Each structure stands twice: as C-alpha cells, then as structure tokens.
C-alpha cells in the first residue's frame, strides 16, 4: 500500500472514498444499479457533479493526447474508411443511408422532362416512387420539394402553370414554394389537401384507411369531394382523418419525430416490436422470427439513423429491453433474426 498523499488521506478521508468511486465510474468498472445510483446522486449534489465533471474532463483529455490504439486497429480502420470512400464515389450528396438505399434526387421540369419520350405517361403526369428501403426526393422547377418515404408512390400532374396536383399513396413531406397564381393540391384517394404556402407531412395509410397530415408552416385546407372538412389547422398541429368513420382528431405535431424519416431515420412512437420488425424487414432485407409471442408486443419509442447497421440497431433495442436475439445467415446470403 502506497501512502503518497498522506495529507489527503488524513484530512479528507471520507472524500477520498467518494473520489475512489469517481475513479471506478470513470474506468467503467461500476455497472448496474450502483452506477445509476451514482449519477442519480450527482443530480442532487451540484458540487460533486462539478468536480466529477472536471475530473472526467482531465481524464478524457489525458487519454485523447496520450493514449494510442494498436497500429493494427488503426490500420484496419483506415482501410475500411478508404474502401468506403470508393463505394460512395459518384454520389453528389452525403447520403445518410448506406448501400443500395441511396436518396434519389430527381429534377422535374414543367413540360420538359429529363428523358423526353421515355416516360410511359401523358406529358403532364410523371409518376415517382420510392422503392421499399429507400427515400426519394423530388424537386419541382419552382424549387418546391417533395420527399417520398419508403414504399410511397406519387403522381405529379402539372396543369399548365396554374395548378399542380400530387396523387399520393403512402407518406410524403412537402415543402412548397408559395405562388398565389398556382394551386398546389395533394390528393389522397377521394380527399385533398390544398396548400397555402407551406411545409407539411401527409401520410395516406391505405391499410388503416387513414390520412394523417401534420402542418409545420403556413396553412392548408382539407377537403373531400364536395366540401371543406378542415381549414383552420394551426402550424404545429396535425389532424388524423379516419376514412371509415369519417372522424377527424387533432393533436400536436412534433416535427422532429414526424419528419425524422426524411433525414434517413427510423421513427418509432409507441410501436410494438412486431411493427418495428415489419419496417426493418423492408429496410435491411431480413426476416424476423418471434419465438416468444410476448416479445412481439413490447413497445418502443425512439429515433434511429437508418445508416445504423442492423447489428447496432438490435443492440440499441436490447439496451432498452430484456429481449434476446440471434442472427442467422443462410447459404444463399439471406439473413434471419430470431427473437427468443
């Protein structure tokens, strides 16, 4: 036992014990309840909190300046980085999404298309779709932009310069440049949303037979074929229209959550693992199998980047629940995740 700092031991013996705990926490040697209790305690003790923070700062700074990873580890990491730079070559935007699922940017000119004659549609209608597992972005000539979520189809119909309508099946975010002399309409089945210079998100869920529209800026009007159903929605609010019951409900719209998909993130708000699995199956092209039906019903809320590897994402999910899983890769390259 070394007694290099006797003054410290004698004078502040009790503190040293606490500081020793600092040390164990710093080194990650404490886990579980003891660890969460420690941080809970820091919450109630501003002075300790400040001291621990200062100590941690010195600790991290010291490691940053002095500690080296192994040459092998660094070399391997560099090679991986370099391979990735080659893979991404050719994309003009920093894609938040990996592999085959890149954001597709398409420029649409009114009356003059990029590949004239190759579209199998009438000249004033162009159909766009975001295949499962990817997000597409469309930019109209006036600068208005439309993002299509995975598995969404949108037919953009231009009626001269006075009217643009978008026939939507699925979910899309609209950032429309306002033009007094032009109508901009989103058509969801028999219902329509009129833009009044706006940022809004429309989710036409054909399975649930509902239209959910969140307004972030400007104004919109929601109509059926005959009359207006809603016209005074405030920005920051959203309405959900249940088509079968013809019922509208209005709630607050948190943009961060609602439009996280367009930044290349998965958004789960109170979703069961079964629902999440469905979405992940599309994205990662894997199959999920639940051995324990109870696991299926576990509920999660969160936002996760899509470029996150599936392994990491599963780890994050496991972090917030007790579930266990196993990943199996078959000979043909297909992948199965089994929840126990």
């Amino acid at each position, binding site marked *: 036992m070394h007694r290099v700092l006797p003054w410290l031991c004698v004078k502040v013996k009790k503190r040293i014990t606490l500081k020793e705990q600092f040390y164990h926490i710093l080194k990650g040697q404490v886990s579980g309840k003891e660890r969460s209790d420690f941080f809970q305690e820091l919450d109630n003790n501003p002075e300790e909190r400040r001291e621990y923070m200062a100590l941690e700062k010195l600790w991290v700074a010291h490691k940053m300046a002095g500690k080296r990873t192994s040459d092998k580890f660094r070399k391997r990491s*560099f090679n991986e980085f370099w391979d990735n730079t080659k893979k991404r070559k050719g994309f003009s935007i*920093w894609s938040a999404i990996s592999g085959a699922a890149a954001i597709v940017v398409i420029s649409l000119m009114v009356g003059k298309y990029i590949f004239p004659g190759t579209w199998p549609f009438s000249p004033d209608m162009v159909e766009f779709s975001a295949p499962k597992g990817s997000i597409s972005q469309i930019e109209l000539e006036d600068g208005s932009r439309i993002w299509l979520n995975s598995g969404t189809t949108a037919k953009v119909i231009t009626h001269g310069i006075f009217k643009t309508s978008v026939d939507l099946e699925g979910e899309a975010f609209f950032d429309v440049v306002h033009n007094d002399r032009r109508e901009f309409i989103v058509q969801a089945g028999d219902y329509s949303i009129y833009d009044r210079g706006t940022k809004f998100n429309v989710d036409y869920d054909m399975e649930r037979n509902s239209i959910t529209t969140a307004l972030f800026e400007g104004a919109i009007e929601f109509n059926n074929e005959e009359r207006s159903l809603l016209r005074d929605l405030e920005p920051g609010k959203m309405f959900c229209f249940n088509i079968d019951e013809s019922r509208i409900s209005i709630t607050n719209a948190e943009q961060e959550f609602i439009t996280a998909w367009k930044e290349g993130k998965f958004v789960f708000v109170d979703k069961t693992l079964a629902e999440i699995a469905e979405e992940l199956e599309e994205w990662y092209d894997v199959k999920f199998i639940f051995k324990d039906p109870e696991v299926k019903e576990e509920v999660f809320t969160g*936002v996760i980047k899509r470029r996150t590897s599936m392994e990491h994402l599963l780890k994050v999910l496991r972090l917030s629940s007790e579930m266990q899983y196993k990943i199996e890769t078959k000979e043909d390259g297909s992948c199965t995740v089994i929840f126990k």
Partner: protein
Amino acid sequence: MVNTNIDIPGLKNGNKKAFEVIYQDFFDMLFYLAVGYLQDRERARELVQDAFMKLWEHRETISNKTNIKNYLYTIVKNSCLNDLREQEIIARNNREYLIPELKYRQEALEAFAASYNEVESLLEIVEKSIDDLPEDIRITFRLNRYENLTYKEISQKLDISPKTVEARISKALKILRCDLKEYLPLVQLFFVFLRL
C-alpha cells in the same frame, strides 16, 4: 501554423497518402474523445469513421485556413452529443434509470473543450509542470504515469530500489502541488487515480 504536416492540396485531391497521414495522426484523439463520453468502443469507432467520411465528402471545400484537427474534433463531439440524445429518447421508454447518466454525459460533453486547442492548453499546463521537474524524478514519474508501470517494475528498469521510486514520485507530487495550485485538488486527485 494551423495545419502543420498536413498536405492540404493532397486532401483536396483525395490523395490516399494525405488522408492516411491525418487519419493516423488524429484517429486516436477522436476515438478516445468518443469512447470517453459514449463508453462504447464500437460506436465510437463508427462515429470517428463518419467524421473522416464527412471530411472526404467535403474535401473540395477545404482551404489552408481550415483547421482540420478542430474540424474533425467538432464533428465527433457533435455526433457524440446526438448519439447521447438518441440514447436518452430510447431510454425514456423503459430504462429510465439510465437517464441521469445520459443527461449528465450530454451536459459534460457540452461543457467539454469547445475546440481541440482547449484540450491542448489544459494538458500543457500539466505537462509543463512535469517537464520542469528534476530529470530523475521526471523520468520516474513518467514511467509511472504514462506507461502504467508499478513501482517494482520501475525499480527494475532504472535499477534503483522501490523505496527510491516511491521517494521520487512523492517528491514529484510535492513540486506539482505547488506548481499546479490553480488546478488543485483536481490534478492531485488525478494522480491518485494513476495508480501512484
């Protein structure tokens, strides 16, 4: 000089050697920043890779004025913060006991050096004091502090008795205690942790 030993034109052209040099130089610094606050080596490595990838994507906009080290530092710091925020959202569901720590980490990381220069100057103060120690004491101290050698190992290496090692370390601390008054008791505490 902001970018000593950095081949700026090479980076702009996407030259492999130029990237490898900065990668080798800055990887560990960035990695240990992320490990320090995320406490997850795998995730830390991912975020550092992403930071270099961002530099790659924006290489054409680099100029001599760009402080490459700080640029990478800021990206990693911010992405760690985002990661902690995401973890917190996820924890809100049914791992609420993780929240105090996640909140603490965000606050601590936000308060952490605004640029890498700040990290350097903090350490410089500590380093300077160590450099000013008499040579034999300094060597002993560094072996203990940087190479994590025990007193016994140091005594074998320097061919002195363990008692002498102990005396030298003790002397070093006495001197440092005077020199680093401002940072006391923090620095002393820090040395306690370095297994003295």
